[in-house]
């Protein structure tokens, strides 16, 4: 899959709440094939304190509309600059980068996301629904009800369970304490997860004890995003020390030295 570098045009910048916003970007020449789990590297113009690009998961792809969406959390100066992006502004992207989630036909899968980690799961869910016969259940965790993102888009393709740390919506606590993960034995064919590393490690443990395959998307710090700088490495059981950006970001947890 050929990587490209180029300017995309901001179609909209939708503020969801104090933390999250969604950038919809269009590419007039069309969007190349993108697989769920892949990411983009965005150049941050006009922010003196950011030197490197910033990697973001792809939240959704619309080939007909020639757009991609990024769900971004305001975390530092780079994302705060992007939060100010205006329609018609150009953003320079390198994409699509990285590998993708493994897809199994006719399966019953659970997608577990925490915070901004829900981003690649919407695209994965849409992809699974469009191309495969798959039963989807989402388990999505947020700090409070105010930080919940576009739940209707997840509900349109599967059953959605919510947790909030303060109990202001759905189940109180963390995703790993939700009943959907505490039943025994769990009947899923596959669990996909993205979010804080501590959450993914717990999800991986639960999947492992139920002998369910589990794939996670890692968020290691990256210098380039396309395999040149060797900074985002992860230690694996099957392949030693490898780049998260080119060999990942998606890994089967049985291969990670967690």
């Amino acid at each position, binding site marked *: 899959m050929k990587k490209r570098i180029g300017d995309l045009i901001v179609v909209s910048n939708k503020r969801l709440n104090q933390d999250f916003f969604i950038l919809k970007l269009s590419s007039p020449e069309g969007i190349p094939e993108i697989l769920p789990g892949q990411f983009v590297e965005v150049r941050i113009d006009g922010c003196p304190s950011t*030197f*490197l*690009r910033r990697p973001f998961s792809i939240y959704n792809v619309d080939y007909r509309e020639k757009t991609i969406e990024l769900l971004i959390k305001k975390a530092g100066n780079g994302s705060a600059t992007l939060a100010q992006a205006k329609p018609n502004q150009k953003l320079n992207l390198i994409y699509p980068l990285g590998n993708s989630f493994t897809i199994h036909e006719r399966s019953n899968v659970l997608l577990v996301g925490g915070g901004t980690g829900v981003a690649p799961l919407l695209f994965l869910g849409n992809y699974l629904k469009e191309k495969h016969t798959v039963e989807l259940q989402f388990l999505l965790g947020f700090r409070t009800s105010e930080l919940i993102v576009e739940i209707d888009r997840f509900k349109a393709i599967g059953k959605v369970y919510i947790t909030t740390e303060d109990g202001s919506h759905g189940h109180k606590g963390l995703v790993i304490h939700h009943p959907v993960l505490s039943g025994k034995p769990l009947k899923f064919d596959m669990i996909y997860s993205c979010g804080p590393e501590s959450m993914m490690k717990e999800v991986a443990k639960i999947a492992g004890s139920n002998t369910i395959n589990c794939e996670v998307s890692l968020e290691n710090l990256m210098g*380039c995003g396309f395999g*040149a*700088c*060797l*900074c985002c*490495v992860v230690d694996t059981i099957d392949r030693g*020390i490898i780049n998260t950006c080119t060999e990942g970001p998606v890994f089967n947890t049985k291969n990670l030295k967690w």
Partner: protein
Amino acid sequence: MVDLKVDIGKLILKNPVITASGTFGYGQEYEDFIDLSRLGGIVVKGVTGKARQGHPYPRMAETPSGMLNAVGLQNKGIDYFIENIYPEIVKYDTEIIVNVNGASIEEYCEVALKVDKLDKIKAIELNISCPNVKEGGIIFGTHCPSAMAVTRAVREVYSKTLMVKLSPNVTDIVEFAQAIESSGADSVSLVNTFVGMAIDAKTRKPLLSTVTGGLSGPAIKPIALRMVWQVSKAVKIPVIGMGGIMNAMDAIEFILAGASAIQVGTANFINPAITIEILEGITKYLKENGYNSFRELIGTLEC
């Protein structure tokens, strides 16, 4: 047509734009973005005698106008390079330069000797300046007698163009450049990264697993430029300049300061097509200023 050719020892580059070691992989990482055959040369990721795992994560920290890295020469060793990478990269119509590393003079010589037998590789860059390995590397680059000893030893076993990459982490870089020249080097390249560090005050921990690392990017450019200028005046061998080059004008500044060719490093991470943009920018500058050949521009700083 402007003549862009430049000689570095016996090596003839079709243009002065080279990629810096450790920022360009083995070239293949950039194949989707640019036509690698348009480059003057590619200095590949540093190679050692034995395979090295490199340092633990985290290896990178973004800093004002630059970045720190502590990769630690992760590579699969010279034999793996010869078997698996060499056959793949020599298909490009550009000069492949191998960045040679070692923990001892013996290891440097072992790698250089093996590379000497590779027909399609006409130059090596001896890396005596990696700040990220405990033994070898910068020890040779910051102690003048050691720098001379390793250069002499490699000169004995390596018959083609020998370039030595200098460390800026010294009091007087000119002394090192002259010592390298007198020890048989055909060219010096400078600068490697500056030793630096970054701290997260919230966690009271360093941002790199190794605490210190190598600083690169435009943050170092003025210092690198000054060093290239000083060294160019003091040695007769060609100087290859690098350090924070982000665009064609940066590259031209290094050439005016005395560099016969330039290397582009960290800029590749932000714009993987930057080398070609720099090449086109240099060509345009030469045309607009009435130069017939690139060589006429080297070291023409007026001061």
